[in-house]
């Protein structure tokens, strides 16, 4: 198991999970989001290759209404 911070919330995931698996777990559409992993943007093509470890910080953002 690994403890990570997802959008500021502490969550536990299985160890060696990829970003792709994380999105799948939370049923997030990877086409409609952008991801930052420990402060660096992860290109969509790397979602399957990027593995998460203890204390990682992940931000998942999307578009909302704004001026």
């Amino acid at each position, binding site marked *: 198991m690994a403890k990570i911070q997802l959008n500021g*919330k502490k969550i536990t995931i299985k160890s060696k999970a990829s970003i792709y698996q994380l999105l799948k777990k939370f*049923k997030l559409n990877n086409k409609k989001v952008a991801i930052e992993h420990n402060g660096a943007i992860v290109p969509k093509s790397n979602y399957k290759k990027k593995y998460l470890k203890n204390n990682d910080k992940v931000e998942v953002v*999307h*578009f*909302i*209404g*704004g*001026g």
Partner: protein
Amino acid sequence: MEEDNLKKDNLKIANIKLKSRLIVGTGKYKNFKETANAIKESGAEMVTVAVRRINILDKNKPILTDYIDPKKIIYLPNTAGCFTSEDALRTLRLAREMGGWKLVKLEVLGDKKTLYPNMIETVKSTKILVKEGFNVMVYCTDDPLLAKKLEDVGASAIMPLASPIGSGLGILNKVNISIIVKQSKVPVIVDAGLGTASDATIAMEMGCDGVLVNSAIANAKNPVLMARSFKNGVISGRDSFLAGRMKKNIFATASSPIDGLI
């Protein structure tokens, strides 16, 4: 202008051509349905959007893209709410990763009460974004020198405020906006502070290339009707500008001929 040419009177920002000179914000509406209806009625082809954390725990909530199709309406990612260059750059880089958006709106705020832009950070951020290949539309003060500076560092459009964001005060400094319009070679789009359709008409009559409106529509009693009003206001103002208004005289000139008077 001949009729054919009038039809081709597009607004060109970077490599994007727009028939409508009204850009609409998508914030502050009652719900997404109202947002979608207002945008439809406004005739806008481009809308501003914000980038925020997704709500992981409540994914069943509707999202903006369910109501406004990014394939039909151009999303203009905006850095609203960013008070540092670092945050603004981070937001726009994420936006680009999300859907390949190169045309973005930069807004680096400097003061919570007035939401006035921090122009030092804004100029700095514009330079970096241009270097990274972004086409940047830049929210700015109505200072002609700073507007020129933004153009010099590669801004794709200059977006001076009419008055503070969400204030509805209309154009406070017409002289400055006129100077900015005269000196700029890139589109000038008045952003922030318009309160009602006539404010948009005035901006367009002054020769602005477009206007961006959010609060005036979203905060109206009937936002969908106000959206239509802004559409018509922008069209009227643009037509008046192209038509070229008559000269002002302090004395009367009769409209009917004197000859044949009984």
